[in-house]
């Protein structure tokens, strides 16, 4: 009797392990599949309700965290800082564009979001629990016009891009995810490179493969490059603010051709984001 139980237990375990590997093999590389769309259709409304209902609890816990970390910041000053930062980055980008006589994009009033894009505002309703991948789930999907690869921003700057969509929800891969790589440039100066994350540290991005021998200084802003060659192009339009250079030691620049960048957006505390739909990329 006991042996029968053990055999049955092992059989179920083997079945589950084989099932997991089979699922991984079949679904790897797919955006979303029928099962996920079905489950998402059922659970998205529940998650939305749970998200709203649990907001006071989240706020309370975050308040404690902020108190511990002495992170409490004045909301008005923060808004002003966002505004000034956007204007500064927008102005620097515009100056660079003027100097190079490139008029590829129309910037909106703030100078951050180029024209031709429609913004769809979404609320973050889920977040990956592990540090190994940085995804958030938002409550807008293909039904709202969101498509895979659409750029995602918040009030501070670039957040990531849409990696998968269902009818009513989408997965956003953040710029700190290990799979993320953003073509970026430093303004002013126009030095170009590829922005990669430092997995596990959401406040550190690495601007790698710097394509110029010009020196980069601490405090310089980094924006998306938004390149396009024929049919191939970046997911992101040009001049979306990403962050500012945080560590630009000469030694690292010369030896590794990289600098460290602190993202403008607080990627640990995302609540509302905007998906830039439509528009021509690059």
């Amino acid at each position: 009797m006991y042996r029968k139980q053990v055999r049955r237990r092992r059989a179920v375990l083997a079945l589950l392990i084989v099932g997991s590997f089979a699922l991984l093999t079949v679904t790897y590389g797919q955006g979303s599949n029928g099962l996920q769309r079905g489950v998402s259709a059922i659970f998205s409304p529940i998650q939305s309700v749970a998200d709203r209902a649990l907001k006071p609890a989240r706020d309370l816990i975050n308040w404690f965290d902020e108190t511990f970390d002495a992170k409490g910041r004045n909301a008005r000053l923060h808004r002003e800082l966002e505004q000034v930062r956007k204007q500064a980055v927008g102005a620097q980008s515009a100056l660079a564009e003027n100097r190079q006589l490139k008029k590829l994009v129309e910037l909106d009033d703030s100078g951050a979001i180029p024209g031709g894009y429609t913004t769809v505002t979404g609320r973050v309703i889920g977040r990956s629990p592990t540090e190994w991948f940085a995804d958030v789930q938002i409550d807008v999907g293909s039904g709202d016009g969101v498509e895979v690869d659409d750029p995602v921003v918040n009030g501070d700057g670039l957040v990531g891009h849409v990696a998968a969509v269902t009818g009513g929800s989408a997965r956003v891969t953040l710029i700190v995810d290990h799979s993320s790589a953003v073509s970026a440039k430093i303004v002013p100066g126009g030095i170009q490179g590829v922005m990669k994350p430092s997995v596990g540290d959401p406040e550190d991005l690495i601007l790698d493969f710097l394509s110029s021998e010009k020196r980069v200084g601490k405090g310089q802003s980094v924006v998306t490059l938004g390149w396009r060659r024929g049919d191939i192009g970046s997911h992101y339009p040009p001049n979306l603010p990403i962050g500012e250079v945080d560590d630009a030691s000469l030694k690292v620049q010369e030896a590794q051709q990289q600098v460290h960048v602190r993202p403008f957006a607080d990627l640990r505390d995302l609540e509302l984001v905007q998906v830039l739909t439509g528009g021509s990329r690059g």
Partner: protein
Amino acid sequence: MILTPNILVRLVATVVGGVILQLSLFSQVTLFDVSPDLLPALIVVLGLLGGSLTGAVCGFSAGLLLDCLLIVPLGGGSLVLLATGYLAGLFRERFEIHSPLVAPLLCMGLTLFAELGFGAVEMMLGFDAPVSTLIVRDILLKCIFAFFGGWAIYVGVRRALRPALVDDLGGRRSGRRPRVLGA
């Protein structure tokens, strides 16, 4: 664990509720700059109370639901959480649990296992980025949260599944004092 339809419903509700709470609450709050990950702790508790088979099945289901809701390739979360639940159940089947610290300590240890497992699955699927040493701090903090969270989860889930627990039935039976007729 005595599985009845009623207990199955409670198990499903516990797993679904746990996943929703993790995504909507715990993953979206930060304590000391880290979001608690209490899903492995929940699976550990289910494995401890229900045995290796219950732990593995609950872990697989929770992982599958998590992967579906996060719209990531299916199977990664299932694989890690089923191993977590199975190990917790195996511990229960091999050893007697006397100390109240066993459950939280196991939650802590197996959360470390699960976090490393998630990392291993990600690396198996292709990982092309430098890893900051801060991730070690984050994982250790998650384990500490799992220790304290595991305590509460163990009490709550044990209460919810009490009618199905053989140990508790025995305990209650032996604890009941016989009524004296005519007294």
